[in-house]
């Protein structure tokens, strides 16, 4: 009986399987060689000039860096105008958000030039990075804010009380302040990829964990907006986001923590405990092009942008 010929698809499948086996065998041999195909983002090029700089990370810092990148590109357009020794190439600065965690992992992976963080580097991260440089741009404090419409008479909470509120042990407003009605406390926090979560956990919560009923927000400004939209909300809005939200009239009210009010003086002096550095980190030494932009960030323009975004600059400009 005449055997039916295999369909093209069946024959192709057979061919493909043979090819797959061959490729796998070749791949096994090739894998012995170390992977030197690390993306070249750091400044080792002797011949190649990299006209792009990539920042990645904190949702608190990226608006500042983006704004400065925009004005830097508008002002100089090509690298040689910023620094006469650089070639005449178009300036491209890329800023990607994602959270402080993304900033560090991207820097470790080598997929970005600078990782932006809104917290200190952890020990294991310092070890993984090896040779790194920290450029601290600003200080941010975490205010313990309630909605301005909340009629709370207390304006000072102890760290313990705050921890109890955020962990859910105190669940209604009348347990905090007897003059308030028995409304459930709506807790707003940052998500786990935000540096703020860790800072708050370390400085306030200690051994307690934040309650499961807390709503996570993906960025500080979203957190501030959430508190502003909800009369019975409480959350740790960043100082910058707090100021931005109150720019057109007070919608948030920051409470004192252990008697210390969050102001510029108390934050810079370190008296206000719940604070964090806002910075970017690079591996090794920056290239001349990167240095040109870094100088721009730490100039008077940079200081103004940091202040207008509501943060406290932790540098004084060079001139």
């Amino acid at each position, binding site marked *: 009986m005449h055997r039916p010929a295999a369909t093209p698809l069946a024959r192709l499948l057979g061919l493909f399987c043979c090819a797959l086996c061959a490729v796998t065998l070749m791949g096994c041999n090739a894998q012995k060689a170390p992977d030197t195909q690390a993306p070249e983002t750091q400044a080792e090029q002797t011949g190649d000039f990299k006209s792009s700089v990539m920042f990645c990370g904190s949702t608190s810092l990226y608006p500042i860096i983006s*704004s400065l990148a925009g004005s830097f590109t508008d002002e100089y357009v090509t690298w040689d105008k910023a620094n006469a020794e650089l070639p005449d190439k178009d300036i491209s600065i890329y800023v990607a*958000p994602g959270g402080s*965690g993304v900033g560090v*992992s991207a820097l470790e992976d080598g997929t970005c030039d600078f990782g932006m963080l809104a917290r200190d580097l952890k020990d294991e991260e310092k070890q993984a990075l090896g040779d790194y440089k920290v450029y601290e741009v600003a200080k941010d404090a975490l205010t313990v804010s309630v909605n301005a419409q909340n009629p709370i008479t207390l304006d000072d909470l102890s760290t313990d009380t705050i921890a109890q509120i955020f962990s859910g042990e105190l669940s209604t407003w009348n347990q905090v302040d007897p003059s308030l009605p028995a409304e459930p406390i709506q807790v707003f926090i940052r998500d786990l990829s935000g540096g703020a979560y860790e800072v708050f956990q370390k400085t306030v919560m200690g*051994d307690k964990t934040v309650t499961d009923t807390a709503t*996570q927000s993906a960025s500080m400004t979203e957190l501030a907006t959430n508190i502003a939209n909800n009369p019975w909300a409480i959350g740790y809005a960043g100082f910058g986001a707090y100021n931005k939200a109150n720019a057109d009239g007070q919608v948030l009210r920051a409470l004192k923590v252990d008697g210390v009010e969050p102001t510029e003086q108390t934050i810079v002096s370190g008296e206000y405990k719940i604070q964090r550095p806002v910075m970017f980190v690079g591996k090794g030494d920056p290239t001349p092009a990167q240095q040109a932009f870094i100088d721009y960030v730490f100039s008077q323009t940079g200081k103004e*942008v940091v202040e207008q975004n509501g943060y406290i600059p932790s540098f004084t400009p060079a001139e």
Partner: protein
Amino acid sequence: MALTADKVPTRARRCLDSVRGAPGRLASRAGGSPAGRLRDRLATWLLACLALCACLLLGSVGLTVAWESWPVVTEIGLAPFLLGTTWMPVDFGTGTSFGILNFVLATMAVSALGLALSFCVAAGCALFLSCGARPSVRTTLTSLIDLLAGVPSVVFGFVGLVVVVKAFITLGHPSGQCVLAAAAVLAVMLLPYTTSALAETMDAVGAQCLRASATLGVGRWHAAYAIVLPCALRRMGPSLMMAFGRAMGETMAVMMVVGNANLAPRLLGKAETIASLITLEMGTAQAGSLHMSALFGAGFTLMAIVFVVDALALAVERRAARRTAASDSLWLWGRAGAGLVRAWAAVAAALAAGCVLFLFGYVFVQGAPVMSWDFVTQAPAGTVLGTEGGIAPAIWGSLWFVGTALVIAAPLALACALVTVFWLDGTRAGRAVGHLMAVAAGAPSIVCGLFAYAAIVRGMGLGRSVLAGGAALAIMILPFIEVRAEKALRDVPRDLLQSGLALGCSRVHVLRTLVVPACTGEVVSAVALGGLYALGATAPLVFCGGVAFAPAPAGVLQPAMALPLHLYLMLAQGTTVPQVYATAFVLMALVLVCNLAVSGFAAGRRRRWLRR
């Protein structure tokens, strides 16, 4: 409007016409010139190759997810992972635990509730479209509802946040964000899919029974109530389950409205779906850590549930197909029931149309004051980014991403559809491909982003780039385009193919000269709608190539801004809400223009084909 057999000119004449044009082509019959046969064979192998690549690409995404989540089984244990309710992935001194039960329940609850709400409106609307509407009203209403399918999920989330959540707050809910709000937003997003699926089922039933009932003197709405509705309801299972898969994979819109808290889902309580979990936490998980494996494990669980639901749907469909229509009629409450159903159909159709008009109108009205030519042509600026300037780099970036995605996905999807319909129809391989596409369509879009990050950004060392983002989008839209193209190809009358083959022409030749020109309009619209879907995607781009600030892209190896990502970041800023409306305005305007262009093109092609 389906291309029915009686509208197509003589099949044999058409085939001869196409062959007559070039004398050399007659020789491409079996037994003809070797050059012609070789060319046809190469074409067949090329199609098979591309189709295989498409299936392998989707399969490798699934395999990668499974591979990455293997540590869940070895280090956490399946039972604690699937049945535990504590989720503390980072050790703050209190240990770590990975339990996703709440997330699984929340995903299923939000999807089921959204589907139920959508179905209530869609059933009435479909009944109206199928039995109650004049053809002109039907086409207008169908195109209107189909517009919803193109609206980006970020815009749904945004409008849900400013309208639905605010409504809940004014009605007394403490935070406005809850499972019900998310289900309401999801219901509106699912409307086009449920309505079209139900309308098709009702058309099929109507074609069988309505003429006979009219001959017997039964009124149109009585027949609709007593025959069409019960039959369709009994057969809607499979299509509803497909929509369920789509609902499960929905990321952005639900994430912005559901509250994101690790709680067991309650109607007015906050919850967190698996897709939002992955999106929110993937940034903080270190590569290779248990946290990352747990997130992949959650994604795999989601895909497994979609797989099971889809398999159930297929089984139900096959069982239902064996039943006859005669046993399914129902005459409950007599005339009063018919009147109620008629009123419900009208109300549902009005509600569906109202949703679409409100969505577009709201965004256009709010965004119009900020819109200007400068907004579309300048880069974002201002000391607080975005308060000045415009969104030009985002528009260019989006176009580059969509272009790259289409260049990768369109050939693969179309080849896969061609091979499935014309070579594998009815075989187990064909059903397996259909199954694969259904599961891939239900996967959360962030999984595509993760795969592209692992394969292209880190694996190939290209870093964040348009290519990586485009590849992620391509994986996301591949099943979308494939399913629609398959449907378009199946609608072409089989007689065309068979008469061509009977004349001795090779299959590829008949496809190229007869079948594909017959449905070019629908195929092009499938590809264009896939591009629109890619335009609105946010989650896959976050790790692959979408950035908050970049100049307009000059090549595929650089990162770029993207419109929906820009919208989401501006919204998170809080200070640039008018600009958010304007960005949404631009997105919706693009959706509207593309839809009109595509349906105009499809209608034009159909008219030209029928005239010949």
